């Protein structure tokens, strides 16, 4: 109750940030909505990767540093396989590969380290990160590859009746965001409404108790890592088609880190909202705040988009370490 002020403050700042460009007339309505939509679309992708983080953290207490690398690995796999087969088949095969990967990680890394210190597990996932980055390139190559989803990339003009000049929307972006949102909703339902979802939540809540009522921990971890792998694949494919599949993808995917800090490590809802907030926030900051800063301090300019999320997360760590939706005491890391 009492510690609500950081949340209120953040809400207020965001609200002001959102409204200011409109009120001051710095942005025409159409352009403003375009920026907003752009932010939301990349936000959904952040959410997706962040859910992968939160899932694994909740279920196994492991802070999976490798989530970004899994995105890259999956994208590489799909991109290279799609050169030799239809895209859908590449995606299916990619999914199989990610599940197999989950199985290997569970067997070779997690199971031997059960009940070890959190730091050991963190180091293990760091190891997995570098292994995946390197092994992925060894296996699939290190150039920039393309994924073509077969959806027109030309911008489409919509809502030209409402706003002067209309809004330019990239149809592919739109479809991608829709797919991501659908996946997020599906995951939430899966967690709340199915027996396996219930078992996952049970394991996340209390390992030992879950084990004593006969929930097999290994199987649950396997499922969690598979789901995280699948989520990484979807994010990887979408991002890959937008930015091209390249090494920097794992850096972009790491944006999920500030997202989970903002949303709270253990909360799926936090991952969703955190992703959207950061997606919209950084776009807004880049477009509207950036030029102001450049002018005011006579800077070289640009790049706000790259560090905005981390600064926000840092601030949050200071005032509200448990995140927007997280539980109070985190003692697992």
């Amino acid at each position, binding site marked *: 109750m009492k510690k609500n002020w950081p949340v209120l403050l953040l809400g207020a700042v965001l609200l002001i940030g959102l409204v200011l460009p409109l009120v001051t007339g710095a942005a025409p309505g159409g352009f403003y909505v375009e920026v907003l939509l752009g932010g939301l679309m990349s936000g959904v992708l952040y959410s997706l990767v962040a859910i992968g983080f939160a899932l694994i953290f909740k279920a196994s207490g492991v802070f999976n540093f490798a989530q970004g690398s899994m995105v890259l690995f999956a994208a590489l796999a799909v991109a290279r396989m799609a050169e030799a087969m239809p895209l859908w088949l590449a995606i299916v095969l990619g999914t199989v590969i990610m599940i197999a990967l989950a199985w290997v990680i569970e067997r070779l890394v997690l199971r031997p380290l059960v009940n070890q210190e959190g730091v050991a597990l963190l180091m293990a996932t760091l190891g997995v990160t570098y292994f995946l980055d390197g092994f992925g390139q060894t296996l699939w190559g290190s150039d920039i590859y393309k994924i073509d989803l077969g959806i027109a990339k030309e911008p489409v003009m919509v809502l030209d009746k409402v706003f002067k000049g209309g809004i330019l929307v990239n149809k592919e972006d739109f479809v991608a965001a829709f797919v991501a949102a659908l996946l997020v909703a599906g995951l939430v339902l*899966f967690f709340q409404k*199915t*027996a396996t979802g219930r078992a996952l939540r049970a394991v996340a809540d209390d390992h030992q108790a879950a*084990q*004593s*009522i006969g929930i097999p921990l290994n199987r649950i971890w396997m499922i969690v890592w598979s789901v995280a792998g699948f989520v990484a694949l979807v994010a990887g494919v979408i991002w890959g088609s937008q930015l091209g599949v390249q090494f920097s993808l794992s850096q972009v995917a790491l944006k999920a880190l500030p997202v989970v800090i903002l949303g709270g490590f253990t909360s799926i809802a936090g991952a969703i909202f955190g992703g959207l907030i950061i997606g919209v926030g950084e776009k807004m900051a880049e477009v509207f705040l950036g030029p102001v800063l450049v002018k005011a301090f006579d800077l070289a300019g640009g790049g706000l988009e790259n560090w905005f999320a981390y600064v926000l997360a840092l601030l949050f760590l200071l005032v509200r370490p448990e995140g927007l939706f997280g539980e109070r005491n985190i003692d697992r890391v």
Partner: protein
Amino acid sequence: MAGESNTRAGRIGDVILAVEGVSLAFGGVKALNAISFDVREHEVRAIIGPNGAGKSSMLNVINGVYHPQEGTIRYLGREYHDMDPHQVAVSGIARTFQNLALFKGMSVLDNIMSGRNLKMHSNILLQALRIGPALREEIEHREVVEGIIDFLEIQAYRKSQVGQLPYGLQKRVDLARALAMEPRILLLDEPMAGMNLEEKQDMCRFILDANDHFGTTIVLIEHDMSVVMDISDRVVVLDYGRKIGDGTPDEVRANQAVIDAYLGVTH
């Protein structure tokens, strides 16, 4: 009442769990020293003893949390070695915890439903789509769980988050979740700890009813001797990791070693 206990005694069957010469040591400390006793089908078997007597260790050995250095445990005529808690659960032994290991963030209903996990077999994909066998299975299990909710009189709290409930109710949810596993043996770790008298009486009634209604064999450890004596068929008494008494409540009450242990007489 005499008639009642006669019929109950008639229900008690053969030995289903036998602990034979079990010793357990942590480092140099012997927590259990050559303990032997047996549990018969359908009985209420208590393990009592002062603090530090080794009661919890004993339960954890049966439950598969600890593996004894010596001795064996025979369950349904078969010895078991190095089973982990999950395997023990699969074999039909459920337990509750002294310090409540409920899923605090989940609803009462979800907690109890998760006790049905072992009985669920439908494919994860079918579950995800909520179709066919998965949905039917969910409904069947929900029926069983509703029966248990009714049995333990917690209808009013189905949707409540467990962490928000008072302690006595949480204990009841813990029992409900264990019963949902339909175990052959139910291990209760101090089921009455921290309760007031009324809650204790309720809990006694639920334990006896569960024993009666579902035929569940019950092994409970308890600190409060008076409560145990009222509901147990036979009692094992531990002190400093050794067995100092075993028999009906009346026999145990008359046992000099037990009296000394509880009064704190040193030998």
